[in-house]
């Protein structure tokens, strides 16, 4: 089957239309045919009554017609309307003048007073016979049984039906053609907005426009809006990849220059080896940080909200395994109902780095809680993440450096690796805020607000 929506619609509508018109034509044809048949039967009945009214039994038990039958066709040979009357012995008792040259056979086994219609062929002429058995009584009180047969050619009825049928199908065919044409026009007009959106997408692809900016039909407005968001997301991701690649290339140049300077020396001193170690460590951190930054995706346009509890539980289980020697107590307070529209990998990175940092520094306990918040003043909703540990905490000046956005890894706070820098980037990507202060019981208290996407 064709993949075009227009062809599919036209084909299915035409199929339904043909079925409907075909069935309607058949029903009308049958109804007309039955009506014509019934009219012919009624006519035969009327002829029979007029014949019975004229029939009389003479004193010598012979059938006689009082006067000529009213319909002149009974007197005109080969007129198509004939009467035969047979006596009880099957002998012809009377016939109309029109029946000269024709013969019919009596049925004999008839119930008196009941009509019996038979379709027959009278010398190659299709005809209908009405057989009727009647008892005629003479004036002397005698009676005799006769079988009256009224025959009418059905040729004229058949011609009438054929004429009707031909006219009916011509009309239905014409109507069908017009309806299909109308449907084709309607479907084509209805699908015009889709063609418009396809043209606009092609224009975007060729760089002529940036967004889908036509006034689309109501049904397509939501689709256009989602596509615009997707396009914007993709552009943002692409820009982030490019920026990250440029940043990475740029930031690797300094340690590479140092390394180039080192290998041109004939002999390496202990200080040189230490320098080699520092520079390779720095390059490793740069690569890790920039790759994680590039991999971050931000709010997802079409993704379903993500349940956070299973992710956090998985991370806690994993970290419990890795930090088993520390015998830490992890307390998790998050409802299974809490969901957030974000990319799964981003949430693993955010919670993974936060928890890893807490596990790394904690002496005996780590707590994490995630709640939904609704700030009426800022007209903002989202999730609030609180993580605490009972470790040594971070000194105020170090904290300022850690929380400074866009911090270069080679300037990152010693001992905190790139985890906090990655957290900072992710929070900014989700338009969130990150706060940190020392805990009352020692250690560090982190609060992150991530607003829901509007």
């Amino acid at each position, binding site marked *: 089957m064709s993949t075009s929506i227009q062809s599919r619609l036209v084909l299915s509508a035409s199929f339904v239309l043909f079925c409907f018109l075909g069935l309607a034509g058949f029903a009308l044809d049958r109804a007309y045919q039955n009506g014509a048949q019934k009219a012919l039967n009624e006519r035969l009945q009327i002829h029979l009554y007029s014949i019975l009214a004229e029939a009389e039994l003479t004193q010598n038990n012979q059938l006689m017609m009082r006067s000529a039958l009213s319909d002149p066709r009974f007197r005109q040979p080969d007129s198509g309307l004939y009467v035969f009357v047979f006596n009880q012995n099957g002998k012809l008792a009377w016939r109309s003048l029109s029946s000269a040259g024709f013969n019919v056979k009596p049925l004999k086994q008839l119930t008196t007073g009941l009509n019996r219609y038979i379709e027959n062929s009278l010398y190659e002429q299709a005809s209908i016979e009405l057989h009727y058995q009647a008892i005629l009584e003479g004036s002397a009180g005698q009676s005799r049984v006769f079988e009256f047969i009224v025959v009418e050619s059905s040729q004229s009825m058949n011609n009438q039906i054929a004429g009707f049928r031909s006219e009916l199908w011509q009309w239905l065919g014409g109507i069908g053609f017009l309806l299909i044409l109308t449907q084709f026009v309607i479907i084509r007009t209805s699908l015009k907005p889709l063609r418009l959106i396809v043209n606009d997408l092609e224009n975007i692809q060729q760089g002529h426009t940036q967004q889908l900016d036509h006034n689309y039909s109501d049904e397509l407005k939501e689709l256009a809006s989602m596509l615009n968001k997707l396009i914007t997301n993709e552009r943002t991701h692409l820009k982030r990849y490019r920026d990250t690649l440029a940043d990475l290339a740029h930031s690797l140049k300094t340690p590479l220059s140092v390394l180039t300077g080192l290998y041109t020396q004939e002999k390496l001193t202990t200080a040189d080896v230490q320098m080699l170690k520092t520079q390779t460590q720095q390059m490793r951190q740069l690569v*890790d940080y920039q790759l*994680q930054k590039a*991999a971050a995706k931000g709010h997802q346009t079409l993704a379903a909200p993500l349940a956070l509890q299973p992710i956090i539980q998985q991370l806690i*289980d994993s970290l419990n*395994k*890795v930090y088993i*020697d520390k015998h830490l107590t992890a307390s998790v307070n998050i409802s299974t109902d809490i969901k957030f529209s974000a990319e799964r*990998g981003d949430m*693993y990175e955010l919670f*993974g780095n936060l928890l890893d940092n807490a596990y790394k520094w904690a002496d005996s306990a780590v707590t994490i809680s995630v709640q939904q918040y609704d700030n009426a003043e800022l007209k903002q909703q989202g999730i609030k993440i609180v993580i605490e540990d009972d470790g040594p905490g971070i000194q105020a000046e170090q904290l300022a450096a850690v929380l400074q956005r866009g911090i270069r890894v080679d300037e990152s706070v010693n001992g905190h690796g790139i985890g906090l820098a990655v957290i900072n980037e992710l929070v900014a990507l989700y338009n969130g805020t990150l706060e940190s202060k020392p805990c009352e019981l020692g250690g560090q208290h982190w609060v992150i607000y991530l607003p829901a996407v509007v």
Partner: protein
Amino acid sequence: MRVLIVEDDLALQEQLRNLLTKKGYAVDVASNGEEAIYFATEYPIDVAVVDLGLPDMSGLDVIKKLRAKQIKFPIIILTARSRWEEKVEGLEAGADDYLVKPFHNEELLARLNALIRRSAGLASATLVCGAIQLDTNAQQVIVDEQPIELTAYEYKMLEYMMLHSGRVISKSEITDHIYDQDFDRDSNVIEVFVGRLRKKLDPSGISKPIETLRGRGYRFSIPLNT
């Protein structure tokens, strides 16, 4: 201790083999998943280092298959991918720790030591049996508060015996755990090492930390403080 390295990159494989051999481990090397499963099933491995990107099957599948066979030695994952989702996946598959490439040798050694210690149910990095202290991180042995010099094999033999103190250890078990498969089992090297260890640990012959059980093997008789 017998370590299995599962790594397809020949340069890194060789580097790891040299590093661990130098540190006194008996090293088996597998370049793909099939080989890894064979070694893990056929040899008494104490700890494994598994790279996730193998040619025939993923390192995760190797770990899942080993765990499905009830093989329980600790496993550390080596991965070039540092995303948390992947780390969690590896730990859920049955690994005990992960190390992201590139890594420092000291970090790998420390993690391996920690895993071996953890699998023996010890919390501290220092094994203490009476007056004998063995620091697994510094690979240093102190007897009566005096450091003593041990060769790499002597150190590994002592570490294995202390980790399994109180239990009879056959000669072949010691051989399996401190030598790789090329070792000549008919030689008397183990007896020589035991003799040297006795002299270094107990020069006066009073405490007698290593007992010989004729026809059965040896027993480190001083209990381990856990």
